[in-house]
């Protein structure tokens, strides 16, 4: 094989446009109600509003909501079709704009349009502007002290009070040199204090709101557009921008704008200042220019229509805070371009026309000493790209055999440890030695003489040469003095050998595509000594020397393999990877970057003492996060010298410096976009994004919520979680589903909460919540319950009262009856006794009288007996009297009676009776019997005992009354049944009371009577 040195011819065929920096690529946003855009703003809630020639639109990054005008008489609708004015939002959630008919004010909360007329001073006629091309409608500029200022083309300014709806007209009082009034051009700007500046065809006009005076500058110049930055006004005219200092009144030109030669320039229709004090301008031909805050000149940044020949005018511009420039144009509608330097850079981008249409499959990457990227592609040879300029060129190879299939594919460009650069093309191996300028071609022998195009897929230094893996088996390469010899060793497998690695122990690891890993002990072995992960489709192997781990990328995840003990650990989607199809990894310190089939994943490795395998915390990057492309490729990953990482994909190569990839933590702007109850708007008076609470009757209990994160960067991976507090026990993780329905909710108090998470996976702390109260039907309300409960309670109370009253009545009746009985008793006894008593008295007196006349003993007896009877009657009356119920009274009476009995008996006597007992109530029987028994005993003693001494003692013992009557008289024989009823009577009476009688007596030994009476327990 001859070695032929040849010169690398570079840069023969430039394919991309050579520009300083890359022009913006503008993407059209679909869905507008009409594609002529006059104004773009974002409101306080984050929604974007777009004014078109046919209605108003609201954009949230995903959906476009159109507000079309109405031509009828209905109120609260928009009137006027063409919104050829600025859009202005004030503090009261109102959006002001002028249409071809009238000034409209849109209340965003209530979703209602109101119209306001502007009246001229001179004749009080309503202002109606015409439609001619360069004239404007009433253009709201600012609101100051509740007054919105409008600028019109020929009628000057109007100050409309939002409260009174009255307007004052300030026509332009300055005339030009010809004495004609000066019409104002498209927009005016406010300097933040009290001045409005206007571009006109006859110079620069200033209106002072405080004084109401106009002033004019730059008389001889004609301007079309104006903006203000700090205190400097910038004025656009035909392909030119001038500046004017509002304080010093000095001015100057920025001059011609730096534009590529082929660009056609036009009138600068619009200039704006963004939040970072950059200036942006758009012209009649669709060109966009930028002057950075610190820059001196405007630079051309691109054309909204790309490279097309037809150019459309730019009408408005808006630069947002998330790195996008929005352009409203004629016919093209709303366009968006990324203006911030993304962390991720790619080649080719949209400006490279030729390649993008085919797609550029990158299989291998190499960064050379001049920092250029070498891309080995599928059927497109090798591209060498200048990162800074984006220029690229194809590498020319000396040998090309058109017969060989897939000859143009370059699966490998690799620099080995010795500094040699290896690649292959169309059946030839090419090696460039260190320091050499040229490649050395070596034809690759094909063993079976089949018509195959051998491609170098992998290479590794081995012993005194190199092992080369190809699509037709394993080869060995040696250098002999000046030559490189390559010879076929064996067909390890049918598939190409996509990776070779020689382990520190000298084992040869071969990775045939889709057959796991084969580990050979020696190069000549036909069979592998060991096979691992045979079922897996292994994509690549990277050895991490520091961590002693082999990273194996497979189609089923990333494996960390510890060859010493055969231990390994899988990392898949479950560990946070967006895709388990991992092509390859690049490790940097404690991070690794993996290219997968769904973007790139940055993994933070966390080692702990327990395991040789780290835990990996993945952060994924897809197109949503700014990655230009999602599908990466086998073999296409590379770590450059300065830490730049390269990943090859189906659409070219992506490169970046890891430190430039900031994981910005922007809170997702979550808004409620729809809230329906029973399929109708929950609140017909308030837009869903403004609703905070709603009250519903019990039968409106089917709820539908829809929510979305406003994001203009196409963040596809927003995830949502929501919870209806009071119904859902916990958060429901709905992933990307952004709506939920609740049917047939029971009455109660609920709070619907929803939160969103961006690409970092962390839930934003800002939630949206709506309070929903569903009132119970009246039969379930508290007042109904209370009412019925009180009714029931009332009934219970009434019944209880009634029963109590009945009881009381009964008791009273009972007492009454008892009283009646007593009274009756008394009456009866009294009547009886009166009669008897009277009679007895007579007998007594008569016998007394007779006694004195005749002095017989019998008469004496008669008298005595009748007297006694009277006394007895008296006693009966006493005991029947209801007043004498208590024990105390009985004892007092008894004491008295006994005293009477014993006073003149001739005996010594003592009476000891308890003094207390006022609480104890005695029955009639008790009273009678106690009295009679005691008196009887005393009577007998007085009559028969002839005693010297007698004592009567009674004590209260608990509930018993114990009596003891003792005398020292004659006594009697108790065993003999006396004929007299006396003792029997006594016993009878006491026993009737439930008491006991004990008699002790013996002739000559006196007598002792013990008797006790049980009493009622005290009540």
């Amino acid at each position: 094989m001859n070695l032929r040195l040849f010169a690398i011819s570079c840069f023969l065929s430039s394919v991309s446009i050579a520009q300083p920096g890359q022009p913006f690529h503008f993407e059209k946003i679909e869905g507008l109600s009409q594609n002529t855009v006059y104004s773009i703003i974002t409101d306080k809630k984050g929604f974007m509003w777009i004014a078109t020639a046919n209605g108003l639109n609201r954009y949230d990054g995903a959906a476009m909501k159109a507000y079309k005008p109405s031509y009828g008489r209905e109120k609260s609708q928009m009137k006027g079709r063409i919104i050829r004015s600025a859009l202005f939002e004030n503090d009261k959630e109102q959006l002001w704009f002028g249409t071809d008919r009238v000034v409209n004010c849109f209340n965003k909360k209530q979703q209602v349009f109101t119209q306001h007329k502007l009246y001229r001073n001179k004749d009080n006629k309503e202002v109606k502007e015409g439609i001619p091309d360069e004239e404007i409608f009433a253009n709201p500029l600012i609101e100051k002290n509740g007054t919105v200022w409008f600028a019109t083309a020929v009628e000057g300014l109007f100050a409309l009070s939002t409260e009174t709806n009255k307007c004052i007209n300030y026509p332009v009082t300055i005339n030009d040199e010809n004495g004609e009034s000066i019409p104002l051009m498209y927009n005016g700007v406010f300097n933040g204090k009290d001045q409005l500046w206007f571009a006109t065809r006859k110079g620069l006009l200033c209106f002072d709101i405080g004084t109401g005076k106009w002033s004019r500058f730059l008389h001889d110049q004609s301007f079309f557009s104006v903006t203000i930055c700090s205190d400097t006004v910038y004025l656009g005219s035909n392909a030119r921008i001038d500046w004017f200092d509002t304080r010093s009144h000095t001015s100057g030109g920025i001059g011609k704008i730096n534009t590529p030669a082929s660009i056609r320039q036009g009138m600068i229709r619009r200039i704006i200042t963004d939040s970072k004090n950059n200036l942006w301008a758009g012209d009649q031909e669709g060109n966009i220019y930028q002057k950075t805050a610190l820059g001196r000149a405007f630079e051309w940044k691109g054309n909204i229509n790309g490279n097309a020949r037809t150019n459309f005018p730019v009408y408005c511009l808006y630069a947002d805070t998330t790195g996008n420039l929005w352009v409203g144009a004629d016919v093209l509608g709303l366009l968006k371009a990324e203006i911030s330097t993304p962390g991720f850079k790619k080649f080719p981008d949209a400006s490279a026309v030729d390649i993008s249409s085919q797609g550029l499959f990158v299989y291998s990457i190499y960064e050379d000493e001049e920092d250029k990227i070498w891309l080995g592609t599928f059927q497109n040879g090798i591209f060498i790209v200048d990162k800074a300029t984006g220029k690229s060129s194809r590498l020319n190879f000396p040998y090309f055999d058109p017969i060989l299939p897939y000859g143009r594919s370059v699966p490998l460009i690799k620099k080995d440890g010795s500094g040699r650069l290896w690649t292959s093309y169309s059946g030839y191996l090419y090696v460039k030695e260190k320091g050499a300028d040229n490649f050395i071609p070596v034809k690759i022998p094909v063993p079976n003489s089949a018509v195959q195009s051998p491609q170098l897929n992998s290479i590794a230094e081995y012993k005194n040469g190199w092992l080369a893996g190809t699509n037709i088996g394993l080869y060995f390469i040696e250098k002999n003095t000046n030559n490189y010899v390559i010879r076929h060793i064996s067909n390890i497998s049918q598939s190409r050998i996509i990776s070779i690695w020689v382990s520190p122990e000298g084992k040869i690891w071969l990775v045939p595509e889709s057959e796991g890993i084969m580990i050979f002990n020696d190069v000549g072995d036909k069979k592998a000594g060991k096979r691992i992960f045979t079922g897996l489709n292994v994509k690549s192997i990277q050895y991490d020397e520091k961590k002693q781990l082999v990273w194996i990328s497979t189609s089923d995840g990333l494996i960390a393999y510890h060859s010493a003990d055969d231990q390994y650990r899988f990392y898949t989607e479950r560990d946070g990877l967006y895709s388990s199809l991992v092509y390859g990894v690049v490790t940097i310190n404690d991070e690794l970057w993996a290219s997968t089939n769904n973007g790139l994943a940055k993994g933070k490795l966390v080692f702990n003492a327990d395991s040789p395998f780290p835990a990996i915390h993945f952060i994924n990057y897809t197109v949503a996060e700014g990655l230009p492309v999602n599908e990466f490729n086998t073999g296409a990953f590379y770590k450059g010298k300065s830490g730049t990482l390269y990943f090859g994909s189906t659409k070219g190569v992506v490169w970046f410096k890891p430190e430039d990839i900031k994981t910005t933590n922007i809170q997702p702007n979550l808004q409620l976009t729809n809230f329906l109850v029973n399929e109708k708007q929950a609140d017909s008076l308030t837009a869903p994004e403004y609703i905070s609470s709603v009250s519903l009757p019990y039968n409106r209990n089917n709820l539908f919520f829809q929510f979305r994160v406003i994001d203009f960067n196409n963040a596809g991976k927003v995830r949502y979680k929501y919870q209806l507090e009071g119904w859902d026990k916990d958060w429901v993780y709905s992933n990307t589903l952004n709506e939920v329905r609740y049917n047939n909710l029971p009455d109660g108090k609920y709070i619907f909460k929803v939160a969103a998470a961006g690409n970092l996976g962390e839930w934003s702390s800002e939630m949206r919540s709506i309070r929903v109260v569903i009132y119970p039907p009246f039969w379930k309300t508290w007042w109904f319950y209370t009412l019925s409960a009180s009714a029931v309670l009332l009934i219970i109370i009434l019944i209880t009262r009634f029963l109590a009253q009945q009881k009381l009545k009964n008791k009273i009746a009972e007492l009454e009856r008892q009283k009646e009985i007593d009274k009756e008793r008394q009456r009866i006894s009294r009547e009886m006794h009166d009669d008897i008593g009277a009679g007895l008295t007579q007998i007594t007196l008569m016998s007394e009288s007779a006694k004195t006349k005749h002095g017989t003993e019998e008469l004496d007896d008669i008298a005595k007996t009748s007297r006694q009877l009277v006394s007895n009657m008296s006693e009966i009356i006493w005991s029947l009297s209801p007043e004498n119920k208590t024990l105390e009274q009985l004892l007092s009476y008894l004491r008295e009676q006994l005293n009477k009995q014993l006073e003149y008996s001739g005996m010594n006597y003592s009476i000891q009776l308890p003094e207390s007992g006022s609480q104890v109530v005695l029955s009639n029987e008790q009273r009678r019997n106690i009295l009679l028994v005691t008196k009887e005993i005393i009577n007998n003693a007085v009559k028969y005992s002839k005693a010297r001494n007698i004592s009567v003692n009674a004590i209260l013992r608990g509930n018993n009354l114990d009596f003891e009557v003792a005398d020292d008289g004659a006594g009697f024989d108790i065993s003999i049944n006396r004929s007299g009823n006396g003792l029997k009577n006594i016993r009878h009476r006491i026993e009737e009371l439930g008491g006991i009688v004990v008699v002790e007596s013996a002739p000559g030994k006196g007598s002792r009577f013990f008797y006790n009476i049980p009493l009622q327990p005290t009540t």
Partner: protein
Amino acid sequence: MVKIGSIAIIEDDEKVRHYLAEQIQLHIDVAELRVFGDAETALKELTAEPVEIALFDVHLPGMSGIDCIQRLKMLHPRMQMMVLTVYDNPDTIFNALKAGATSYLLKTTPAEKILEAIAEVQQGGSPISSQIARKVIEAFAVREKTNEYFQELSRREQEMLEQLSKGYRYKEIADKSFISIDTVRTHIRNIYEKLQVNNRAAALKKTGLL
């Protein structure tokens, strides 16, 4: 023998009247003895010409004995009046005492006892029973606030009434309080008089004459 200036008997029962008159004349040295059959005559006669001691039957044909006692007491406060009853019915007796009687007597009292009672009255004593004592206590317990003439019992009188209401004899009470039985009797008389005063005052107040 007891010596009394004049005695009147007002009793509608002829037998009883005769009996009493007989007994009194036998045993009392009385200068004048007048008998009446009804209260009206007695009132008229005695108003004109009072006696020292009058014995009233409670139940009289027209005006009741108690009524008569009350009127006579107001005209002749020093006339001692005694009521005669069949039983010692405390209600009747108490009413009589309130009206102005200073003693009471059972009709069936043996002759010597009658004379004793009369003597006692003449000497300024008054009988009492436990039931009457209780009634007296009750009467004094309720103090009419508006009656400035209300007489209250003294401490000693209260204590004594207590003992009497419990049925203790005069002797026992006297011994306990280190006073004589006569003093006891005097106390009782005083109590009765206070009772009468209060009663009268209340009655007069009602008629508006006080």
